[in-house]
C-alpha cells in the first residue's frame, strides 16, 4: 500500500514536471508547474511533514505560481521569437542525472528502511522556530524585507526623471 501510493505520487509529479519543462506554450508550462507542486506537497504528506506540505501549497501554488503567471501576462512577447531548444542543456542534465544516480546507488548508508514515524505537531515546529532557530528566523525576516524592497525598486517606473 505504501509503495503503491508512493509510486503514483512519484510518477505523477515527474510527468507533470516534464511537461512543465518541455511544453512550448508558456502558459501551459506555468500551469503544469503549479500542478507539480501539488504532487510535491503530496510527497510531504506521505513522509509525515504535513505542515510543510501545507506551507508548500500556500506559498508555492498560492504565491509563486501566481506570480509567474502574472509576469507572463505582463511581458507579452512574440511567440515565434522564443521558440528554441538548446540540446546542450539536455546533455548536461543527463550527465548530472547519471552522476547523481551513481552516487546514490553507490552509497550504502542510504539504503535503509523507514523508521518509526515521528509525530510532529505544529506546536513542536513553533517551539523549534522560536527557541532554537530564532536567529535564522530573524534573518529570514530581514531577507524577506530586503527582497520586498528590492523587487519594488526594480519595477518602479521612473516617474520623476
Amino acid at each position, binding site marked *: 500500500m505504501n509503495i503503491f501510493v508512493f509510486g503514483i505520487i512519484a510518477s505523477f509529479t515527474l510527468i507533470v514536471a516534464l511537461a512543465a519543462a518541455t511544453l512550448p506554450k508558456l502558459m501551459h508550462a506555468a500551469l503544469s508547474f503549479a500542478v507539480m507542486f501539488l504532487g510535491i506537497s503530496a510527497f510531504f504528506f506521505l513522509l509525515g511533514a504535513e505542515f510543510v506540505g501545507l506551507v508548500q501549497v500556500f506559498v508555492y501554488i498560492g504565491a509563486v505560481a501566481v506570480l509567474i503567471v502574472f509576469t507572463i501576462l505582463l511581458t507579452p512577447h512574440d511567440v515565434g521569437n522564443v521558440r528554441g531548444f*538548446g540540446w*546542450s*542543456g539536455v546533455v*548536461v*542534465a543527463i*550527465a*548530472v542525472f547519471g*552522476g*547523481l544516480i*551513481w*552516487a546514490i546507488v*553507490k*552509497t550504502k548508508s542510504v539504503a535503509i528502511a523507514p523508521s518509526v514515524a515521528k509525530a510532529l505537531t505544529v506546536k513542536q515546529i513553533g517551539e523549534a522556530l522560536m527557541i532554537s532557530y530564532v536567529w535564522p528566523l530573524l534573518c529570514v525576516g530581514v531577507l524577506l524585507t530586503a527582497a520586498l524592497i528590492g523587487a519594488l525598486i526594480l519595477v518602479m517606473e521612473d516617474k520623476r526623471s
Partner: protein
Amino acid sequence: MNTVWLIPATPIVVALLILSLGKTAPGLSAVFAVIGQIAALIMSFVAFFPTLHAHGFRGVENFTWFVFGNQSLRIGFVLDPLAAAMMMMITLVGLCIFVFSIGYMADDKNLSRFFAYLSFFSGAMLGVVVANSLLLLFIFWELVGLASYLLIGFWIERPSAAAAAKKAFITTRVGDMGFFLGILWLYHNSGTLLFYDNGHGCLESAGLAMLGTSATFIALLIFCGAIGKSGQFPLHVWLPDAMEGPTPVSALIHAATMVAAGVFLVARVYPIFSVGAINGVTSSLAVVVWIGVITGLMAALVAVAQSDIKRILAYSTVSQLGLMMVSLGVGGVAAGIMHLLAHGFFKALLFLGAGSVIHALHHEQDIRKMGGLRRAMPVTFATYAIGMMALSGVPFFFSGGWTKEEVLHATSSWPSSHIPHYLMLVGVVLTALYMSRQIIYVFFGNRRAAEEHPHESRHVMTIPLIVLAVCAILFSVVLTPGWPWLESYLTGHAPQFDSRLLFQPMILLSLGLVGTGIALGVWMYHATSELDPLQRKLPALFRFLENKMWIDEIYDRTIIALGALFAWLSDWMDRYVWDGIVRDVGAIGQLFGKLTTGTDERVINAGVDEGTVGAQGFGRVMSRWHSGQIQPYLGAVALGMLALLLLYAWLG
C-alpha cells in the same frame, strides 16, 4: 573673642560687594565703603573695651585650618592692647580718608573700583593686626601688598603709575622673600607658627627656648620683610615713586597704615628679637637700630631738596619710620608704637591737606609753583600747620612732640652706643627744617600758582582734616609722661599720674632743637622764590640730595642691569636653544609627514591605481572570451558540481 575675625572680614566683604556692583552706581559704592569702615570702627571700639579691664590682657582664638599627614596647621586671632590700639587707629584714619576721597575723587570715572580697593586694603590691614599666626599674618601681609599695587597703579592709563606700582611690588617682594624664609626656619625650629597658644606659641617661653641661637637669624629674616614694607634703607626706593597714586591712597597706605605694618611686625615678634638679650641688647636688635638710623637720617636729608609736595611727605614718612625702628631696636617698644599711632594721625592729616591743596590748584604738585595759599584756604592751612607742628615735634600740645620725646628718651639710655641718640637729634632738626620749608613755600609768600583763584575745598574734604587735626591734639593727652596712660596700656603696667614728669630736661632740649630747626627754616626760606636758596648756595649738595643720593641710579646700574643680563641670556637660550630643539623635533615630524605623503601618493595610490587599471584591462580581455549568456554559465556550474560530486563519491 571669637568674633574678632569680623573686623577684617567686614571691609573685605564690602569690597567684594562693591566690585560686584560694577560701574553702575559710584555713589552707592562710596556709601557702602564708608558704612563698612564705620562698622569696622564700631567693632574695633567694642573690641577695645575688654583690653582695658585687665592689664596685660590677651584674648586668643585658635583653630585648625587643615590637616596634612599627622601635622595640623593651626591659625588664629589675637586681641591684645597692641592689636586693639592699631585697629582703632586704622579704622579711624581710614574713615577720615574714605570721606575725603568722596570729594577728592569725585570726578574720577572709576570711583567704584577705587572704593572697592580701599575697602579691600582696609580689611587686609586689619587682618595683619589681629592675626595670631605668623602664616596668617603673612597671608594678610601679601594681600596688603596686592592692594597697594592695585591702588598705586590706580590710574591705569598712566605708564608712570604702572611702573611705580611694579617697583613697589617687586621691592617689597624682595623683602617678603626674606620674611618667608624666616617663617620657614621658625616653623622648622619651633614646630608652631602661632604666636600665643597656651604657652606653646612661638612667642612664648617654650617656643622661644626651642629657637636657640637661630633666633637672631630668624629675627633678621623677618626684619627683611619689615625693611621692604616700611621702606627702610636699602629697600626704601619704592615709597617716593608710590606717590604716583592718588593722594588719599598715599595718605592711607604710605603714611598711616601699610608702612606701619613693618614696624608693627617687629613689635609683634619682639620676643624673638630679644632672645638672649644682655641689658636689652641683642645683635638682631642692633641691626634694626642701625638700619633705622641710616634710614631716618638719609631720608630727612633728601627731603630738604625735594620740590614735589607729596615727595617731601613721602621722604618724611621714610625718615619717621626709621625713627620708629630705632625706638623699637633700643628697647622702647611702647614708645615706638605710640609714635606709630600718632604718626598715623598727623601724617594722614598732612597728606590729606596736601591733597586739598593739589585739588584746589587743579593737580599742581610742585611747591615752587605754589604760595600764598594761607588766606585762600584757611582751614587747610590751619590743619596743615597743626600737622606740621606735630611732625616737627613741638611739645606740650601736639602728640608728635610727646612721642618723639619718648623715643629720644629711649635712645639716650641704650647701653650699646650713644650715636643713634645724637643722630636722631640731628634728625629732629632736619625734620623741623624741611617741614618749615614746605609750609613756607606752599602757604606763605607770593602767589606763584598758575591758578588764578584757588578756593577752599568742599566740606566733605575739610571735615576729615579737622577731625584728624583734633585727634592729633587730643591724642597728646594720653601720651604725656605726666599721665602715661597709653604707655602703660601697651606695656601692661599701671599708670601713675605725676605732673612733675611733664617738665624734664629732655623737654627743654627737644624744644630747643625744634625751635632751632624752625628758625633755621624761616631764615633760609623766608624770601621764597622759584630757585631754592640751598640750591643757590650749595648747588652740588643740593643736586646730590635732590637726586635721592643717586641710590636709584646705583640700583639701576647694578641689580637691574644684572637682571637684564639674565633676561637677555634667557631670551637667547629660549630663542636659539630651546626653540631650536622644538623646531628640530617639529622638522622631524614634518619629514615624517612628507615621507608618509610620498609613500601614500606614489606607492600606495599608484599601486592601487595600477592594480585597478590592470584588473580592468584583464577584465576587458576576459570578457571578450565570454558569451554573455547565462544558460551556458549555469550549465558550467552544473558540470562543476557534478565533477565535485564524483570526486567526493570516488574518495568515499
